[in-house]
């Protein structure tokens, strides 16, 4: 077991170093898509840490992401950039805690609807604040952070998410979430504080999404609420996580890479039908590979007998 863990850790390290070399190999198209893939890798993996075991589908990723962008956009003339990233993380955590406490007692369907509405609600508020404060509809974020730096930042954040995710899965918290996902009544009667466990994980994924938004703000230069709060983002996170398999820590990344490559091609070829494309992708994933690539791999690779 520990031998296997060491091996997996070394493989992960090698992949991380390999991924970090991408900007040296290419600084054009491939780096650009590398940033996109790294973005969704972080978002989907942290999303799946919460939604995988609990089966609560959150569509609030876009709201957190957008808030992170606007915190950077609004504060870039006042505070150093790194401080804004920290503030974004804290704001994301507080917002997630409030939403979690208010909604995680709801059953699944209400939760989905609520999180979907939330993104729109936050977008309206941000737009309203901007118009009443009389500025233009967007914000300029001018820094000297280029794609290479942003890509590395995302990789480091991704590595952190993996480490924390690995730790959670081995901890009592991770075990509690698996029990909750199986049967919440049993979980409660085993002594688990289900609301607490779910809120902790929701806070984690919300914080990460907000930080990702803050990290990507310099890339856009000009931040507008329609782009920052795109509901498309929340859906892509769900699709990629389901495509890869939300039950495994490494599932989402297996979904993100092929999906983003195909998605990039599709949106370039059919720029006016992206929503339709998204819908079709969603249906295909749910019908054809309900357990994701991770499920397929586990099913068809002859299982090496693991202990446990």
């Amino acid at each position, binding site marked *: 077991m520990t031998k296997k863990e060491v091996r997996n850790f070394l493989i992960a390290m090698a992949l991380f170093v390999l991924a970090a070399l991408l900007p040296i190999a290419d600084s054009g198209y491939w780096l650009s898509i590398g940033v996109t893939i790294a973005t969704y890798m972080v978002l989907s993996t942290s999303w799946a840490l919460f939604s995988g075991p609990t089966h609560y589908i959150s569509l609030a990723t876009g709201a957190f992401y957008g808030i992170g962008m606007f915190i950077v956009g609004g504060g870039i003339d006042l505070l150093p950039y790194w401080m804004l990233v920290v503030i974004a993380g804290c704001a994301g955590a507080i917002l997630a805690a409030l939403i979690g406490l208010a909604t995680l007692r709801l059953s699944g369907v209400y939760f989905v609807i609520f999180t979907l509405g939330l993104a729109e609600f936050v977008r309206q508020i941000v737009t309203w604040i901007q118009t009443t404060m009389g500025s233009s509809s967007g914000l300029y974020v001018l820094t000297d952070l280029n794609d290479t730096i942003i890509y590395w930042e995302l990789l480091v954040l991704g590595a952190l998410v993996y480490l924390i995710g690995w730790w959670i899965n081995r901890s*009592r918290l991770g*075990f*509690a979430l*698996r*029990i909750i*996902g*199986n*049967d919440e*009544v*049993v979980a*409660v*009667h*085993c*002594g*688990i*504080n*289900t609301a607490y466990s779910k809120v902790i994980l929701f806070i984690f994924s919300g914080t990460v999404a907000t930080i990702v938004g803050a990290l990507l703000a310099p890339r856009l230069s000009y931040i507008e609420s329609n782009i920052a709060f795109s509901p498309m983002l929340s859906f892509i996170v769900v699709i990629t996580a389901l495509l890869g398999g939300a039950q495994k820590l490494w599932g989402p990344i297996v979904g993100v890479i092929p999906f983003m490559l195909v998605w990039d091609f599709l949106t370039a070829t059919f720029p006016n039908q992206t929503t339709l494309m998204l819908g079709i992708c969603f249906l295909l994933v749910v019908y054809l590979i309900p357990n994701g690539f991770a499920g397929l791999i586990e099913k068809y690779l002859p299982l090496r007998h693991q202990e*446990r």
Partner: protein
Amino acid sequence: MNALSALSVQNTTKRFGGLVAVNQMSFELRTHEVLGLIGPNGSGKTTMLNVISGALKANSGFVSLFGKVISDQPANLIARSGIARTFQLVRTLNSMNALENVEAGGVFGHRRLWKNSLRSQAIEMLDKVGMAGSMNNPISSLTYIDQKRIELARALMSNPRLLLLDEWLAGLNPSELQIGIDVINNLKSEGHTIIIVEHVMDAIRSLCDRCVVMNTGKKIAEGKPEEVLEDEGVIQAYLGSEHA
């Protein structure tokens, strides 16, 4: 009879809309005692257990465990203070194997184990219910009686001060029934305090020190099994329900 009262239920009422499922129930349970909670279908036995375990909140009355009121607490805290249960319709954790199902009961409740002590305790409990051979099997591959045993082992993992068994012997064939009765008898001789909800009269006679009989939410009799089962009102209640 001065033995310490393990559980005390006082004037507890639970309504579902207009239906009074549990009506002013009161009874006591001493430590090391095995109490049979019996009554015809729909008389409120499961609801009574749900109120005790915190799955449902009573509308009035209170429940206390070793002198401490628990009925104002959420179910997870009640579990932590030492009440464990099984469910009338078996509830297992289907994405996990048998061993993990049992381990689930020993991490967050009255006893909080982890790592090696959790593993060894879980294996011991599996052994106690006669399932040590199937510990790595997925739950879906187990038969109904085996799933019930897993559920019992999960409840025992917390080393409960009070165990609630809701028709744990239902649906077993005669030879399985005898095994099941033996398992509970062992628990009894280990000194466990147990409430058994059961329809199987042989099991009630051989296992219970005392019985509380419910009908339409009310307590209609209480006493030694052989006495209450002879009671006119109790016979009426069971017959009445059969003719209903």
